């Protein structure tokens, strides 16, 4: 099929920010509202319900801390990928992208074990206010991690051929944003007890 991949509009840059990066910023802004709405609802309830702290004490702080470490490290790889891409080093960028995605999958695996354990304990989505928020917020975040990791693997294929290198920075931006969300989820869900 003949659909053009890029329009002339796409190649223009009136603001001085390349289009792909500009759109990433807007996507991040709109995601901020989705997560913001959810987290604002959670914080409001949490502050008003002291009994949720008892439920929260069943979360695994160590697993959460390890996952934070994993995401922080993968963020480092993402920014190193960006650095490599800026230096026109497609192979290096692809390597770091794959490492970042690996971090994402490791995060999901840890999450999987953690949730399996909690579900075995009898804490499921319908177990009460805290658990409803816990699974929904973390689940939404995990979906973002999964999507980001998959996109990274796809971009890595191109990057290895030195094609579409500016994209590396954009997926990196998104990844850092997902990381920042987790930086706040970690104390909200695991530490505040």
């Amino acid at each position, binding site marked *: 099929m003949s659909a053009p991949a890029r329009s002339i509009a796409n190649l223009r840059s009136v*603001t001085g*920010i390349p289009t792909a990066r500009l759109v990433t910023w807007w996507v991040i802004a709109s995601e901020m509202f989705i997560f*913001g709405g959810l987290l604002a609802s959670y914080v409001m309830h949490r502050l*008003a319900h*002291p009994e949720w702290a008892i439920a929260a004490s069943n979360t695994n702080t160590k697993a959460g801390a390890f996952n934070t470490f994993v995401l922080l490290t993968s963020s480092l790889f993402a920014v190193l990928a960006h650095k490599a891409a800026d230096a026109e080093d497609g192979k290096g960028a692809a390597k770091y992208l794959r490492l970042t995605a690996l971090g994402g999958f490791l995060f999901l695996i840890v999450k999987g074990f953690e949730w399996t354990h909690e579900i075995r304990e009898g804490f499921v989505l319908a177990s*009460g206010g805290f658990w409803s928020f816990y699974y929904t917020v973390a689940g939404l975040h995990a979906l973002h991690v999964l999507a980001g990791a998959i996109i990274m693997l796809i971009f890595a294929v191109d990057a290895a051929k030195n094609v579409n290198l500016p994209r590396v920075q954009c997926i990196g*931006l998104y990844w850092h944003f997902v990381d920042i969300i987790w930086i706040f989820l970690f*104390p909200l869900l695991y*530490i*505040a007890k």
Partner: protein
Amino acid sequence: MTSHAVSEGGSDAASADHVHHGNYVKVWAVLVVLLIISVVGAFTGIRWLTLLLAFGIAVIKAYMVAKNFMHVNVERRWVGYLLITCLLFLAILFAGVAPDIMKHQGLHWDNYAAKQAIQAGSQENGKHE
């Protein structure tokens, strides 16, 4: 929101594209140290210290990631303004909603169901411990 950038035109688009890359490993090391501090804080058992450390460090970490990894500081300035505006609007949402949701009692209303839930939750979990 487009105001500043638009008039400047796209002449220096290429220069904005390539940022100065600092020492990312150092930033990452600081982030990890901060993470360790916040986790240790959680095990002290002092509630106010735990919360202060946890959320204070979360803000610092988020700022560091935004500044050093996302390069918000060298991005065109309105991007930062855009993100801050988003946070501001979320603060408006919070401020407008909190008086009804975060409180269980107010002028001429009383959220007895929430109070019951707190009571039931505390008792049930107390037995569980």
